[in-house]
């Protein structure tokens, strides 16, 4: 198992190093072959691991690879924990990554940074694997920051574009705000558990459930709540939850393959994975769970709404990703961790599919991303259209498609949850279903149906993408259809994750649902009568009416509800606030401290002031050096008197 694990992570790393350092020597084909070989090896080994751990129920592998540091009596290790949760994540990550690698050959064909791109995505795969395979918080943080780094490099891949290098800096900084909380959470874990090893921490967690901490003197808070909330701040950054979501839409500045891989399927789900991994901690803080639930619900609904007003094909999908991440977060908050991971998996397939299909549209139209300049494309791009339609149906949770199973499971779980905030969350995720269907089909209609709005030149050159692009779409489409049906039973209700996920009996909503679960067919038919299905249908119909049948309606609504529209268009003013208050504010404070503090106060008053007073003192003292001998003689006599007088004074002065 150790060898398998090492092979899995080192394959992509080797690919990244070779493609990155020797890109020029091995050429373009060399770069993609070496990167793909590394990731393919990784995928195959992940399948072997999956078979052993999940299908053959081999015992959990937990071992250190090397000791990174020993200090203060604590060993910091680099090591692997491979249980069923890890095994699933490994397969999902390496599969999507492999698809994206292959797709990239077609998508980036003409890009001068071809080798660099392959090096980055292989490095990303390595980092993401290190993250999901970690057996301790140190390595988790390593992987966490490393995927953030690659995300930074890839968003800014086209570094000549001002918008791209603005977006990557923004992404890095917003994530760093989350990481600040995350790191403090890790520090708090070390403080209370005196180890960063998962197994030891989880084992000791129940004993700490009753402990309190006074961060603000006088207010005793549960230690578990503090730790979980700090860790969750990290998850909010990486998994783009409100209010740390602002970086994800801008991250679309990166090439489309990485939007699919990093900013939809894998990296952004790291926060979801992390919270599921930390279920033995989160279970002991209902406060933290409630916060997770509410934040997730807010993200799921309000980010979805923004998808309706976007006109950039990738941004619509990006807001959809935000909303879907909100759904996963809601599942975590409701203690339905398995449902969250299940949705993570189905979403990875259909959202990667949607992004890659969108990419196919974008190259077909020569890098046009504005949906107002598309329309009627289904004739020209049949494969792209077919797969995009499958992705859309999966996304809105159409019965039978993968997203249906995972999303309905989440909605059911929230309904069953008793936590504070679950009522609000239930309403939010229900309305969210309507919103999802609305923006998804709006996109589908505007891109593939409706009138052709591109210019004549573009229309002449529209062509279906090459097989190297289509094949990954087809494979992802197949999984987007079947993954839900196959896995709902085992994953949610038959203890798939075993001991990897811990749920207290009083929180176990999935068990309650499972009591009435009679197989995937039953679940599907049952779903046909539920609210989510009706809402999704309503969403599709609304989209059809507004964008296909009566295209003048949206304009009227827009005029009638101008303030609301403006709020959505300005994305609830988050960006404006961050720019005007946080960014400009820090710069203003910095400038004030620099000019006012360093230059005026310290250098002006203290330093030059001191120099000035020394100067003044020396002019005074200079008077004394008059050059007249008798002055000096006089001074000597006074000095002598003082010198002699001092012992006399101390002798008599004290006694009297």
């Amino acid at each position, binding site marked *: 198992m150790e060898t398998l694990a090492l092979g899995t992570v080192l394959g992509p790393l080797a690919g990244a190093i070779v493609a990155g350092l020797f890109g020029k020597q091995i050429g373009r084909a060399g770069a993609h072959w070496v990167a793909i070989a590394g990731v393919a090896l990784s995928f195959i080994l992940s399948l072997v691991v999956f078979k052993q751990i999940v299908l053959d129920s081999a015992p959990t592998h937990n071992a250190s690879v090397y000791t990174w*540091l020993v*200090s*203060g009596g604590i060993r910091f290790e680099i090591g692997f924990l491979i249980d069923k949760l890890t095994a699933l994540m490994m397969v999902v990550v390496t599969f999507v990554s492999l698809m994206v690698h292959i797709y990239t050959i077609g998508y980036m064909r003409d890009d001068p940074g071809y080798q660099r791109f392959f090096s980055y995505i292989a490095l990303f795969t390595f980092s993401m694997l290190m993250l999901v395979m970690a057996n301790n918080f140190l390595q988790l943080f390593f992987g966490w920051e490393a995927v953030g780094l690659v995300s930074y490099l890839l968003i800014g891949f086209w570094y000549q574009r001002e918008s791209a*290098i603005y977006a990557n*800096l923004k992404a*890095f900084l917003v994530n760093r705000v989350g990481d600040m909380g995350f*790191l403090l959470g890790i520090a708090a874990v070390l403080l209370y558990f005196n180890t960063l090893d998962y197994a030891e921490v989880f084992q000791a967690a129940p004993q700490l459930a009753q402990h309190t901490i006074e*961060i603000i003197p006088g207010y005793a808070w549960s230690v578990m709540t503090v730790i979980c909330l700090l860790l969750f701040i990290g998850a909010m950054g990486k998994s783009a939850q409100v209010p740390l979501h602002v970086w994800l839409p801008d991250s679309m500045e990166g090439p489309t393959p990485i939007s699919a891989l990093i900013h939809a399927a894998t990296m952004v789900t790291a926060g979801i994975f992390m919270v599921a991994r930390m279920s033995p901690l989160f279970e002991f803080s209902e406060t933290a769970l409630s916060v997770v639930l509410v934040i997730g619900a807010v993200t799921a609904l309000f980010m979805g709404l923004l998808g309706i007003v976007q006109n950039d094909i990738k941004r619509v999908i990006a807001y959809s990703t935000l909303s879907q991440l909100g759904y996963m977060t809601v599942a975590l908050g409701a203690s339905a961790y398995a449902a969250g991971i299940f949705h993570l998996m189905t979403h990875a397939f259909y959202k990667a599919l949607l992004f890659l299909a969108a990419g196919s549209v974008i190259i077909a139209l020569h890098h046009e991303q504005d949906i107002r300049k598309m329309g009627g494309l289904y004739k020209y791009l049949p494969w792209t259209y077919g797969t995009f339609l499958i992705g859309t149906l999966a996304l809105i949770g159409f019965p039978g498609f993968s997203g249906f199973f995972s999303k309905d499971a989440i909605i059911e779980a929230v309904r069953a949850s008793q936590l504070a905030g679950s009522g609000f969350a239930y309403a939010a995720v229900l309305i969210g279903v309507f919103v999802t269907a609305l923006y998804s089909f709006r996109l589908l209609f505007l891109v593939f149906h409706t009138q052709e709005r591109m210019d004549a030149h573009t229309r002449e050159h529209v062509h279906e993408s090459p097989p190297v692009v289509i094949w990954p779409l087809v494979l992802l489409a197949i999984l987007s259809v079947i993954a839900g049906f196959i896995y709902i039973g085992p994953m949610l209700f038959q203890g798939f994750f075993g001991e990897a996920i811990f749920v207290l009996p009083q929180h176990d909503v999935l068990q309650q649902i499972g009591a009435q679960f009679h197989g995937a067919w039953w679940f599907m038919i049952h779903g046909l009568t539920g609210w989510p299905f009706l809402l999704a249908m309503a969403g599709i119909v609304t989209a059809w009416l507004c964008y296909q049948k009566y295209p003048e309606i949206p304009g009227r609504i827009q005029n009638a509800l101008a303030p609301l529209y403006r709020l959505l268009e300005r994305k609830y003013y988050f960006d404006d606030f961050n720019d005007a208050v946080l960014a400009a504010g820090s710069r203003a404070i*910095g400038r004030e401290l620099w000019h006012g503090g360093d230059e005026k106060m310290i250098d002006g008053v203290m330093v030059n002031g001191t120099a000035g007073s020394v100067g003044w003192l020396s002019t005074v003292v200079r008077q004394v050096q008059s050059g007249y001998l008798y002055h000096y003689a006089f001074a000597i006599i006074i000095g002598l008197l003082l010198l002699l007088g001092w012992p006399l004074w101390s002798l008599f002065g004290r006694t009297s």
Partner: protein
Amino acid sequence: MMPADFPLLSLVIWLPIFGGLLVLALSDKYTQAVRIVSLSVATLTFLLTLPLYTQFNMTTADMQFVELAPWISTFNINYHLGVDGISMPLILLTSFSTVLVVLAGWRVIEYKLAQYMAAFLIMEGLMIGVFAALDAVLFYVLWESMLVPMFLIIGIWGGQRRVYAAIKFFLYTLIGSVLMLVAFLYLYYRTDSFAILDFHQIPQFDLTAQILVFLAFLTAFAVKVPMWPVHTWLPDAHVEAPTGGSVILAAIMLKMGAYGFLRFSLPITPDASQALDWLMITLSLIAVVYIGLVALVQEDMKKLIAYSSISHMGFVTLGFFIAFDIFENTGSMQGAALGVEGGLIQMLSHGFISAALFLCVGVMYDRVHSRNISDYGGVVNTMPVFASFMVLFALANTGLPGTSGFVGEFMVILSAIKANFWYAALAATTLVLGAAYTLWMVKRVIFGAIANQNVAALQDINAREFLVLALLAVAVLGLGLWPKPVVDVMHPTVQHLLEHISQSKL
């Protein structure tokens, strides 16, 4: 194996000093010979310092490679050298940095090359001496004489305001050091010895006296680190200093202040250190936050890195002075070791990263003759290899895991939470601030479209520049991926120090 009494420390102190004198004698007539001799001396010195690590005994806190010879016996002043787990890594850092500086000045320095190289070689010997000295007078003499070559480097090879900067640097550090001398004299009066280790063992040291001695040391060391509010000399000095001067200033000289806290302040005046630790912690956190914000708005790259240095050094002093709070809260010194060792690693890491960043700015300055951020933009288009290095070092400066910049910050933050949650929280703001000022600079300088003709005309780094940056990249990544071998040598010394300071001298 060398014999146990082989004077290795003396060798690595005097070899560069005599090498420097030889280079001086060669004079500018033989520039190529000057370069070759300088590089040979620096490299040989570096190789000779390696046995300090490989033959270091990691099981003892005692001084090793000790040399002792009477110097001025009337006052019991000795030529006394030795290293422990705190000073040994700093000596290696010094000899490593000097090699880089010699390489970096290879072709760039055209004016008085021999004197330039000689100044750095002589300074190397003196700096190694500072870290190795176990006699207070010897320490003081080396500490002060080290200023002279640096003063000359800034004053002769510096930028336009070099004289102002050189004098400001000299006065600041000199005034600080004078009070240290007074403290030494007082301690001599108490112990009849100038042996630093004897100072550690003063029994019955009343608090007022301790506080006065502590404050005397503080003035000397706080200026060197530098700590807020005595830091304003550093940005000026860096801006005016030639690249090599900035490298040594940032990589080594700033470390001397921090080293002083561990060698003098904490062990000699533990009760005063404890009584005033709130002050030290406050100043450290001000350095992290206040200076981080100031760094954000700098327009000059060197100034930005200088402010970044001050901010990063805040972690070092924070790591040292949270020890007492941790001891009080947890009843053991174990957690404190994490902080102190974190501070030490931060010193080494900052030595690599700040040196690398100053060298990167130097590479650009040599071509464009400007340090202003606004004069650049899109450097990656014309210098892709250089840009890769610069981005790597910038990311290291933001404390990215896998680079050395992460290790110290991580250890100090993990340790600080044991003292007080808010110490850790304020220190952790560097995750955002450090990333903001560093990567914003990278965005404006490295990325983007080619901004002007100067950038369009840039040539990528040559083999020599590549070598210098590659050596630093190896150091930054090596220490980041596997810090254990370096931290392991510190354990006994740090453990001993913490046990020592946990016992009151009152």
